[in-house]
């Protein structure tokens, strides 16, 4: 068996996954802190104010990466859910459901920062533009998955139901996005967007891309931490859980 398949096989074992991810987490946090630190420093101090929007455009450095992450995480959540559903892989199921709150958090940040950015730019706290409205529906989709999971007592059933709902949501996502876009142009005539017409100079763009990458490391670190908890909580009666926790791990 080639080494990649062997590795993937091993991650199926809870104990192995727990140990392996535990080793990875600190590095992911370190990468996040370095990248986000640099990106925020650039975005908040170094990059000059926008000609049209002034300083409020700096919100872009958290709004746009959050919006990107909210979509990416939904995709990953749904795909992992399908993998877990079809191939009965427990780790996939767990990674899927643990992604949901993280995705919801990013969506909430995108909505709030979008709203706060809209205020100085358009004068109102909420604009029913295509992006924000899409994000709102995405938040509802996330909350639906989390709500369904929470409403079912039996763990296996809960995982599988949530995974199916996430998959259904994934199929719907492009349709929803497209229909909201259409709805927005229909009711407003011109395309209203927070980014407006300003083209992004590389000095403005690079911190944005760096923040986007940093966000992925955040997701990875947070996801693995939550997944390890989830695994422990489900297996708390098992010997591996006792050994893993009480043998004293080096990582917090």
């Amino acid at each position, binding site marked *: 068996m080639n080494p990649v398949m062997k590795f993937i096989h091993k991650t199926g074992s809870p104990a192995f996954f727990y140990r392996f991810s535990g080793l990875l987490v600190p590095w992911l946090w370190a990468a996040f802190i370095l990248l986000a630190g640099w990106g925020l420093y650039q975005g908040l101090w170094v990059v000059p104010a926008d000609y049209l929007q002034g300083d*409020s455009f700096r919100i872009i450095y958290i709004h746009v990466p959050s919006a990107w992450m909210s979509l990416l995480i939904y995709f990953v959540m749904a795909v992992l859910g399908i993998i877990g559903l079809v191939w009965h892989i427990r780790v996939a199921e767990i990674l899927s459901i643990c992604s949901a*709150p993280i995705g919801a*958090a990013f969506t909430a940040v995108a909505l709030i920062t979008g709203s706060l950015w809209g205020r100085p730019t358009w004068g109102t706290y909420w604009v029913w533009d295509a992006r924000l409205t899409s994000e709102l529906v995405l938040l509802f989709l996330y909350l639906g998955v989390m709500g369904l999971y929470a409403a079912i007592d039996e763990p296996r059933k809960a995982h599988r139901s949530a995974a199916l709902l996430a998959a259904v949501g994934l199929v719907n996502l492009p349709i929803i996005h497209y229909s909201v876009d259409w709805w927005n142009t229909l009711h407003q005539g011109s395309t209203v967007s927070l980014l407006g017409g300003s083209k992004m100079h590389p000095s403005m763009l690079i911190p944005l891309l760096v923040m986007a990458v940093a966000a992925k490391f955040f997701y990875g670190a947070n996801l693995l931490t939550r997944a390890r*908890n989830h695994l422990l*909580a489900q297996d*708390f*009666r098992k*010997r591996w859980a006792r050994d893993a926790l009480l043998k004293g791990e080096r990582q917090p």
Partner: protein
Amino acid sequence: MSHAHLPFILAAYGAFALIMGWCALAPLFRRSRIRRQIEHYHQYGNHHDSQP
């Protein structure tokens, strides 16, 4: 920095820090609860499940 926009920038970054901070820290609190649960369960010499 333009003072007029400062409250919005602060509010936005503050919300970001709060939400993502909660997102990052919540698992740590949950973990201590799980730790207590595991300690409690295994303390009284409970039979471990046959599966490791």
